[in-house]
């Protein structure tokens, strides 16, 4: 029975991935991609990696979904604006297509071959006897937490996690650079719809509570900073959509502080303990649990702020030219 479910899930995931690549319309691709993310999350649950499943569902189906929908709206408006020119573009595009038809196919073939080779090698090299699980679990009492995944992420391989937080911040910086730093210009737009406003008011504390729960439960079970951050980021995005852009309401320096807080505290703590003779990101054993919780909380707040800011900036970028057009 379980092999039947796993098989169906595997087929479904691959089918959805292919469909989302091959769908004729952009909106279909986007929605199939959501479905693919959820199928993938289910597959992770079946593999026993609940942490990854929560993150996959929250990031791929949740946060990326919001970004994709936003992009879709931009695309549909630009397409409808340029509808008159489409025929000319299409005819020239079809002429170009014939010339460059061979190259994409060749690239696709080579890529597929390489992918198959790498997957074969990965399957070949699956470590027998559970890989590093035993090593991680034997050190678990010293890590300060009870859940092996959190122990690896926040203690044994803290450097990786620190870099991951940095990567999100770098993404935000890239958006700042391309979109201009002039943001958050419309602070006093209030959600016009009473129902939407009430629902946002209702969901804000619920999401906050659930995020805090995920953050705390990370000590002993699946959950943690990234999962909590996505939920808290959802609060920010909801408030932004409901006409309360969070970053416009707080002073600029507070926003910047919140954005770098997680990364900064993590690094500072690493250096402080390094000066005491430990290696980078090594915790003193007595306080490890508390320190990990503090680091995770600050990191979650920072990631949530970064995700909100990414969305707010992307949303802002296309609104500005529209205003210019109407002025002209």
């Amino acid at each position, binding site marked *: 029975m379980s092999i039947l479910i796993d098989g169906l899930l595997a087929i479904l995931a691959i089918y959805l991935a292919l469909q989302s690549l091959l769908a004729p319309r952009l909106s279909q691709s986007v929605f199939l991609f959501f479905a693919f993310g959820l199928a993938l999350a289910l597959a992770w649950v079946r593999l026993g990696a609940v942490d990854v499943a929560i993150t996959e569902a929250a990031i791929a189906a949740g946060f990326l979904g919001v970004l994709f929908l936003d992009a879709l709206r931009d695309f549909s408006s630009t397409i409808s604006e340029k509808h008159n020119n489409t025929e000319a573009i299409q005819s020239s595009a079809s002429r170009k297509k014939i010339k460059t038809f061979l190259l994409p196919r060749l690239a696709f073939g080579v890529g597929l071959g390489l992918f198959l080779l790498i997957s074969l090698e990965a399957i070949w090299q699956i470590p027998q006897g559970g890989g590093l699980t035993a090593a991680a679990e034997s050190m678990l009492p010293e890590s300060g937490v009870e859940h092996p995944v959190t122990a690896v992420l926040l203690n044994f391989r803290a450097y990786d996690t620190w870099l991951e937080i940095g990567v999100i911040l770098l993404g935000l910086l890239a958006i700042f650079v391309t979109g201009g730093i002039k943001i958050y210009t419309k602070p006093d737009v209030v959600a*016009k*719809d009473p*129902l*939407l406003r009430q*629902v946002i008011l209702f*969901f804000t504390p*619920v999401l906050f509570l659930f995020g805090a729960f995920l953050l705390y439960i990370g000590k002993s079970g699946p959950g943690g900073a990234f999962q909590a951050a996505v939920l808290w980021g959802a609060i920010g995005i909801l408030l932004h959509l409901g006409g309360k852009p969070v970053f416009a309401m707080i002073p600029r320096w507070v926003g910047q502080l919140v954005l770098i807080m997680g990364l900064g505290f993590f690094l500072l703590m690493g250096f402080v303990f390094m000066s005491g003779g430990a290696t980078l990101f090594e915790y003193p054993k007595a306080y490890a649990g508390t320190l990990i919780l503090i680091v995770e909380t600050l990191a979650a707040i920072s990631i949530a702020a970064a995700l909100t800011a990414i969305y707010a900036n992307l949303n802002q970028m296309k609104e500005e030219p529209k205003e210019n057009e109407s002025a002209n």
Partner: protein
Amino acid sequence: MTIYEVITVILLLVGCFFFLAGTLGVLRFPDLFSRLHALTKADNLGLGFIAAGMALHIASPWAAVKIFFIWFFTLLASSTSCYLIARFQREQDQPGKGKEDRE
């Protein structure tokens, strides 16, 4: 097979039936409003039956409360998004009319 299992199976089957009906509605109904109706109403009912079935199956009060909250939040989110999509579509169809109603 105890009586609880029988009831669970019945609840799950009824839930699946409503999901099927909702999906059929989305695929076959002609316009956005009736499709939204099929999707949100029938699917939420189906989810409610499946949640009831699962709560009975797990038979732990805390899990039952959690499952109930899952259903409740889904209900809230889907009815709100249904309303928002429908409102957007109406304003697309009849520009200006929605605004007059609201003011």
